[in-house]
């Protein structure tokens, strides 16, 4: 499954990096980095990151 981030909506709150640090992080340049392709075992973590995003910018595509 694929994690998508709408970077137009994203306001860099960083809640995803708290909820799912293995999937989301910030680079030296301050930009959001994330793992795009993940397997089913990461679904719960990915969904949590999507849920806590204040801008609801994260979607998970199967």
């Amino acid at each position, binding site marked *: 499954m694929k994690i998508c981030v709408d970077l137009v909506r994203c306001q*860099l709150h*960083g*809640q995803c*990096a708290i909820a799912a640090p293995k999937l989301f992080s*910030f680079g030296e340049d*301050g930009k959001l980095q994330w793992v795009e392709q993940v397997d089913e075992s990461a679904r719960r973590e990915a969904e949590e990151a999507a*849920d806590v995003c204040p801008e*609801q910018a994260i979607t998970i595509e199967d």
Partner: protein
Amino acid sequence: MIGHVLVVGASLSGLRLAEQLRGLGHTGPITIAGAETRMPYNRPPLSKDVLTGDDDETALVQSLSFRLRPSLDDVTWKLGATAVACDLTLREVSFADGSTLSYDALAITTGLSPRRVPLPGGEKDRYVLRTLDGALALRARLVAGARLAVIGAGFIGCEVAASARKRGLAVTMIETFEAPMQRAIGLTAGQAMQALHRSEGIDFRLRAKIAGFIDRGDGHLDGIRLESGEVIACDLAVEAVGSTANTQWLAGNGLDLSDGVLCDNAMRVEGRADVVAAGDIARFPNLFADEVPRRIEHWTIPGFTAKRAAESLIKEMVQGSFAPVPAFWSDQHGLRLQSYGSPSLGDASELLEGSLCPGDMRRQGAALGYRRAGRMIGVVLIGLPAGRLAHYRNLVEVGRET
């Protein structure tokens, strides 16, 4: 099997609770009832992007509505239905339209209503912010040159003030405390934020109490008289003086409704196996801080408490103690404020990074740590990039264990 779950409150917490029930394997019927006619939507933008932008209602509904997971396709929505009464013994909820619904398990997620200033006058020009409809009504009045009085300099008041200033209004904030947002972030940070607001042209009347609204005689507002005798001339006012929990419909069941709904650490309402609460309305002991039950009006709390509450309904015993770390943010005059932990519970604060001087704070940002009896219980970051949050978040986590 828990049978029919009735979620009262079509809010973020109501939505998350239903999702979690399905996620935990509940296949029985779920009904979500809500007082508003809209599907659950995201409220934080109401005081910010909605007020400063020009998107019409249709576009806003589309951008604010929460996405619905396919697992909720078979949920029954009962919208525009205000719960007016409830019988926890009969397991039945009554609605304003006269209808009733029975349940096997009840989830309480009816949230808050804005508190009003209990003084008459100028009602046609007095606004509160909680719903999209309320935000749209207020936005229609945010015309450049108009004079706005914001009563209450908490987060919503400060965000509304900044948004209105951006639209070119003359803004005066009236607050009983010594500094804006003082209860949430303390005097030092509050004063730094005040300086930021002042540099953007917002006036303050602090330690000020309202004596009355001056009515023009036709229901419109002429000004606000303070107890000092000063009159703040204004065309409209926003009342941002906190919220009260929507618990009226639960009266008569012997519950402690003194401030929200009293829950245990499993989000069960006073130990009942078939009644839970989540979100702003739930007063629960958060073991992150201590065992004192409190309501927490922070955006991340509905998600956390909904998950816990769903587990409590599905499982006879929930594992471990529940200690979610609160987090919130605010955007004011282009500066992001982020909070992690519970700064409001601190008894001392210290500057950890940057500067609180106006100008310097805008350029460098600032981080403050809040200690309670020596333990770092919260951090507030002003104008720092999100990547820095992880660093400061760890300081709070460490604090929990010491």
